[in-house]
């Protein structure tokens, strides 16, 4: 009798659940009937404008200051005829900082090139191209064309540094086959010195020496698609590179990016005296994990074998300041780590608690001197507009990697409108 009652109860619950589901389906279908959105059509043009204002507190007794920025970014990908395309990308930043009327503008001609698809599987590109390799998130040893490419730093977010930079003038050809590709490019010397002129195309920044690169990738199994690179620069030894990613389980991607070859130390290059050539390794490796509630966590270990080790880094801090500054400026220009080991952590949460709100955070811990960069962003987006609030802090002992930066803490609010 009791068993019969349980069965009856189970049956009632099941039927009630099914009925509830059907009612929910009917409500959902009634909602779906209201959908009227028409498909949008692809545009050759993409553009956005961005305004930002912020406040920074500083070290060394320096006064706090306000900063304002107005930026415009435009990109074109136009098909000219069968197989022919022209691609253009440009960005203009206007900056105002502190009390003084010291506005400065920086234009970054990111790309301007012609692409000819000779056959479906053979392509030739000529012009200024932002070519980028690497699977690391915070550090890219195989990104061989990053040197001197950033004219205007608007954020410490590695994505921003990769987005807002100059391409190099080159001739690039690519051959494709099922599961693989071969890319070859040459980038000639066209000028000697970078230009500080606001509207300069700045060939001296990106094409101040002859360079070349070969890249081959081949899918060797499902989920395994390594890429091998060989890169060279006039007067320097060729560098080998390797990129690999692999999916583990349902939620984890592991990655490794390595570059190695004979070369001088970063310090001797910075001081213009690259003498002792030894084999040096540079690497970024780690994993990215995604949870079911849209949180992605990335942990990356970074190593730069051409940078100063702990002892030399400590010695530099107590040596002539001119050498210290020269080294720091050079490392920043070529986008290399100034010390041997770093840890990079990135977290982002899409639709964090409410729809359309994204939370992003990153931290870079210098393992040589234990200084740290922290950055947090809350970003809300509508159809065409993003609003973001960013907080950034450089922490560490005096003369450490991040502790030396005058700006201790920075707040910035950003509004972006996409056309």
């Amino acid at each position, binding site marked *: 009798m009791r068993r019969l009652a349980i069965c009856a109860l189970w049956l009632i619950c099941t039927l009630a659940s099914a009925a509830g589901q059907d009612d929910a389906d009917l409500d959902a279908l009634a909602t779906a009937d209201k959908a009227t*959105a028409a498909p949008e059509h692809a545009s050759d043009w993409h553009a956005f404008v961005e305004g930002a204002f912020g406040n920074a507190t500083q070290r060394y007794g320096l006064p706090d200051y306000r900063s304002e920025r107005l930026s415009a970014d435009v990109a074109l990908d136009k098909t000219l005829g069968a197989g022919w395309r022209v691609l253009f990308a440009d960005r203009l930043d206007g900056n105002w900082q502190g009390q003084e009327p010291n506005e400065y503008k920086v234009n970054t001609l990111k790309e301007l090139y012609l692409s000819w698809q000779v056959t479906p599987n053979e392509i030739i590109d000529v012009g200024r191209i932002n070519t980028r390799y690497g699977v690391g998130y915070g550090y890219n040893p195989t990104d061989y064309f990053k040197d001197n490419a950033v004219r205007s730093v608007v954020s410490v977010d590695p994505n921003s540094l990769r987005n807002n930079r100059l391409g190099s003038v080159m001739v690039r050809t690519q051959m494709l086959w099922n599961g693989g590709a071969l890319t070859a490019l040459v980038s000639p010397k066209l000028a000697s010195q970078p230009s500080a002129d606001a509207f300069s195309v700045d060939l001296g920044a990106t094409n101040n020496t002859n360079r070349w690169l070969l890249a081959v990738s081949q899918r060797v199994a499902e989920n395994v698609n390594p890429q091998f690179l060989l890169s060279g620069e006039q007067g320097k030894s060729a560098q080998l590179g390797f990129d690999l990613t692999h999916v583990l389980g349902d939620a984890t991607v592991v990655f490794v990016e390595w570059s190695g070859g004979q070369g001088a130390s970063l310090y001797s290059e910075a001081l213009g005296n690259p003498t002792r050539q030894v084999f040096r390794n540079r690497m970024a490796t780690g994993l990215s994990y995604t949870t079911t509630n849209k949180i992605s966590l990335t942990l990356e270990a970074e190593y730069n074998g051409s940078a100063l080790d702990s002892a030399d880094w400590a010695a530099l801090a107590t040596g002539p300041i001119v050498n210290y500054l020269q080294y720091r400026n050079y490392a920043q220009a070529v986008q290399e780590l100034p010390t041997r080991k770093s840890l990079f952590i990135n977290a982002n949460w*899409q639709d964090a608690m409410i729809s359309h709100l994204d939370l992003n955070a990153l931290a870079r811990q210098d393992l040589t001197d234990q200084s740290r960069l922290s950055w947090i962003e809350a970003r809300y987006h509508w*159809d065409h507009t993003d609003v973001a609030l960013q907080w950034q802090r450089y922490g560490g002992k005096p003369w450490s990697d991040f502790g030396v930066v005058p700006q201790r803490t920075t707040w910035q609010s950003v509004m972006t409108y996409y056309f």
Partner: protein
Amino acid sequence: MSKSILAGLLLICSAIAQAAPSAQEILAASDAVRNPDYPFGLTNTLVEYRNGKQSDTSTLAIYSKSDAASGQFRSLIRYIAPARDASKLILYSGKDLWFYDPSSKASIRLSPQQRLLGQASNGDVVTVNLAKDYQASSAEEEDTQDGERKTKHCYKLLMSASTSDATYHHIEMWVETANTHPVKARFYTESGKLLKTAYYRKYQPQLGGDRPTEIVIIDGLDTNWVTVMRYSDWVKRDVPDAWLQRDYLPRFKPELE
């Protein structure tokens, strides 16, 4: 005499067997209704509702091609709208999932978990050959309501994942007996949790057959979260196999016309 009766009975049984296709055959036939058996492109307009209010819209250009080796679809998806995401790409090729952002020139590998998040996650409800990744074990006949609230006589297929590529642990799918049109499907986790319900509706003649041009997806946990996927601009277009790889993503530009 008894031999001829036996032969007659065998003939009838054989005819009955032919008239009643297997669950797996019904599933394969419904796959063929959703997807042409040749490479094609289409525009997918997604409208998302939360609690009855429109919360998001996006437009995707999709190219799909069956992989000769696995029989499964490989797809290139390019964002047309919203403006902030325009020209971003996703490549689906078995377990190889790549996201490409033209601004940073970064090709990022995605995990299957990331595939289930975001707007494009619902792409697998459409351009996927379910018969390749799932084994249908039963095909009971029953009446059910379709996406236009009409009663349809259907096979109710119970399907379980048969390959590691399968996104869902098991699926219930209702397929109309008269024409093997998929009517609705419920997608479940291993623990039996309902992930999503899909209604296939607004059938129209497209690329040589009657195909659903609108899919209504209802979230399993939050039934007030509804996504409408509307298909237009169907076009037969071959995409070279060599384009369906990470290295071609920076170059891919759809031309639907």
